[in-house]
């Protein structure tokens, strides 16, 4: 018994050490982005590792901001003042991710409820279609989608990225799993009280699936933010670039000016990381909620 506890203590210490090493490894890329963004060229091209910038410079950011410019925003043909393109990219990315998130949550909550609680015809077929399409990579439908967007005159606009994201059925699946747990008796009771379908949905269903919507919101937001592929195909103009696309284009153009790339990567990741750290609790709660029911 005694040796057993000794062994388990040893295991505990061992696992803590491994965890700390792993944590350092996981933090390292971020550390490397941030320090890299402030390193002068000599440090960056030094074949020996330079752990901290020998001198903290902002030249990489200057280069990033001076390289390309774009109007800060353009809505209905109105353009904002010309600014470094990186800011426009950030605005585009936020707009795209938030819009995709809202649309997805709204449509998926309704559809998930219907799939779970409404016994309408074709429900089973629809649901299996959704399950099968869930893991489908967008590359599969790349060409038809491109032609469709072109026909809809949406090519080269952020909507061309937003709509397929909303169409991706994972959200419906998730919300369906959530809505399953709504007790039928409550719905029945509301119906007997004479509430309309819409009222039932808004006053009864929505509050009950709120955690699920939270989980889905996070999931969609991060996915949209990271969806490099659709952006690459659908957004050719510099002023419609998103942050990932912008950094990728910098890499393609400047080859391996790592300082500039790190500055771009820092600009792309630090805002969202800060948001994440502030709402960390809700993030983890949301994600967890998604799975407990899923």
């Amino acid at each position, binding site marked *: 018994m005694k040796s057993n506890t000794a062994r388990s203590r040893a295991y505990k210490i061992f696992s803590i050490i491994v965890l700390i090493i792993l944590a350092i490894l996981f933090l390292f890329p971020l550390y490397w982005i941030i320090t890299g963004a402030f390193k002068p060229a000599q440090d960056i*091209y030094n074949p020996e590792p330079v752990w901290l910038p020998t001198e903290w410079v902002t030249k990489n950011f200057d280069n990033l901001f001076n390289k390309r410019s774009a109007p800060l925003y353009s809505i209905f043909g109105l353009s904002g003042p010309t600014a470094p393109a990186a800011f426009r990219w950030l605005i585009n990315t936020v707009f795209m991710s938030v819009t995709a998130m809202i649309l997805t949550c709204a449509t998926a909550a309704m559809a998930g409820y219907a799939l779970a609680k409404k016994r309408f015809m074709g429900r089973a077929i629809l649901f299996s279609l959704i399950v099968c399409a869930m893991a489908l990579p967008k590359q599969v439908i790349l060409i038809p989608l491109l032609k469709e967007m072109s026909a809809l005159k949406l*090519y080269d606009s952020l909507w061309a990225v937003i709509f397929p994201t909303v169409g991706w059925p994972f959200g419906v699946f998730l919300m369906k799993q959530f809505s399953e747990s709504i007790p039928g008796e409550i719905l029945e009771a509301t119906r007997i009280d004479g509430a309309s379908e819409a009222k039932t949905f808004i006053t009864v269903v929505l509050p009950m699936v709120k955690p699920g919507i939270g989980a889905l919101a996070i999931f969609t937001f991060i996915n949209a933010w990271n969806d490099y592929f659709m952006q690459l195909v659908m957004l050719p103009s510099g002023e419609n670039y998103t942050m990932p696309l912008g950094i990728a284009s910098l890499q393609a153009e400047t080859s391996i000016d790592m300082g500039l790339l790190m500055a771009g990567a820092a600009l792309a990741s630090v805002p969202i990381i800060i948001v994440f750290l502030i709402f960390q609790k809700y993030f983890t709660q949301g994600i967890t909620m998604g799975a407990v029911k899923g």
Partner: protein
Amino acid sequence: MKLKKVLALLLAMVMTIALVACGGGNQNDPAPSTPDPAPAATPDDNKTPDPEPAPAEPAGASEITLWTYPIGKWGDEATVKGLTDAFTAETGIAVKVEYLAYADGDDKVNTAITANAAPDLIMEGPERLVANWGANGKMVDLSDLIDDTDRSELNAAALASCTHTSGAIYEYPVVMTAHCMAINRNAFEEAGALQYINEDTHTWTTQQFIDAVAALYAHYGDTVGAVYCAGQGGDQGTRALVNNMYGGTFTNAEHTQYTWDDPLNIKALEQLKSMDGIAFDASLAGGDEIAKFYQGALKMAFCWNIAQQVNPNQADTGAEKTVTGDDIVFMSFPSEDGNSKLQGGIWGFGIFDNGDQARIDAAKEFIKFFCDSEHTVDAVKAANYFATRSSAADGSVDLSGVWADDPIMNEYTKLMPYLGDYYQITTGWAAARTAWWNMLQAVGTGDDVAAAVAAGAAEANTAAAG
């Protein structure tokens, strides 16, 4: 409930419109291939929802798009803005510029073509504009822009390269150069390898190259030169290196067949493979190699030209210097007698046929403005290469002295006589260059050289046969 209903109705409407638009799109599809001015619905101006496009102004389109690859400073926003502003001031036609990279620029253009949203103007070389997009009927024939005076002024070889076998001219050439290689002079000095190069003529022999690499490797103990093959970017460098070492060829003189299974090329590849200081590096493309050279990691670059010499790695840190301040010397590629054949680079403008005559006319105006007027000087200077014509605007603008007061450009004219055959317009070019870098990767990973070369050349020749 009301809100939901309205929302649902709205979405249903969107859906209906979508479907209708889909149908419309299909019917319009054949339009772009025939330069028929009838279909007023231009599939390409989704970016500019201007209600009055073509007919409003007599001059034609009020905005055209230009997509440019990073050709000298044509990839630099401030420079290009200066140029296009001058054009806009004179013609009233606005130019929307997008900057492409060699890494994914082709994909972008192809995507845009698929989406019926190709740019009006594109700036690149004949291997893309003529051999690919031109040959596939995507480009506008520019013959009407080139009269007899222009023909007499333009470099005949450059114009020939811009002319498709059908006789159509799909690119108006602006600048040209000979691609070369470069060495890090300080590193050569340290390794005692300066004795192998002739700094005056910028030439060396294959044996001198081999000795220099050996000396550098002995000194640094690491890769000093990379046969880069991550992709097609900068492949003219690896082709020139392999072909020149023992006098192999890439295509036949008639440009009908790929001949790079030449035993002399195999010999060169085997030689390169056996050299310790040379690595076949599948993680680098041409642009990366330049950056590595600029950073000092590599001591020689095979993807070099005068624009690089003037502004290494486009980093604006001083001409002829690496990031650490080492001197860069441009060199011809090594060959057995030192008399190499350099790869030509030709760049100019092409027009995509978007089926809108007004925009095509505006784009032609742009080409005239920068290729055949007093502004040609600015276009050439921005590109950092040599003009493809002796004079412009019917002889009124002399272009022979564009670089007269630039010592680096003058020094570089020493290499221009070595300019070799421009074979990049051979049929099946895109397949051939893909086969080339794939072959280099295969050689790099240890495949049998002769077999890899034979397989690659066979693939290229299948494409050449049509």
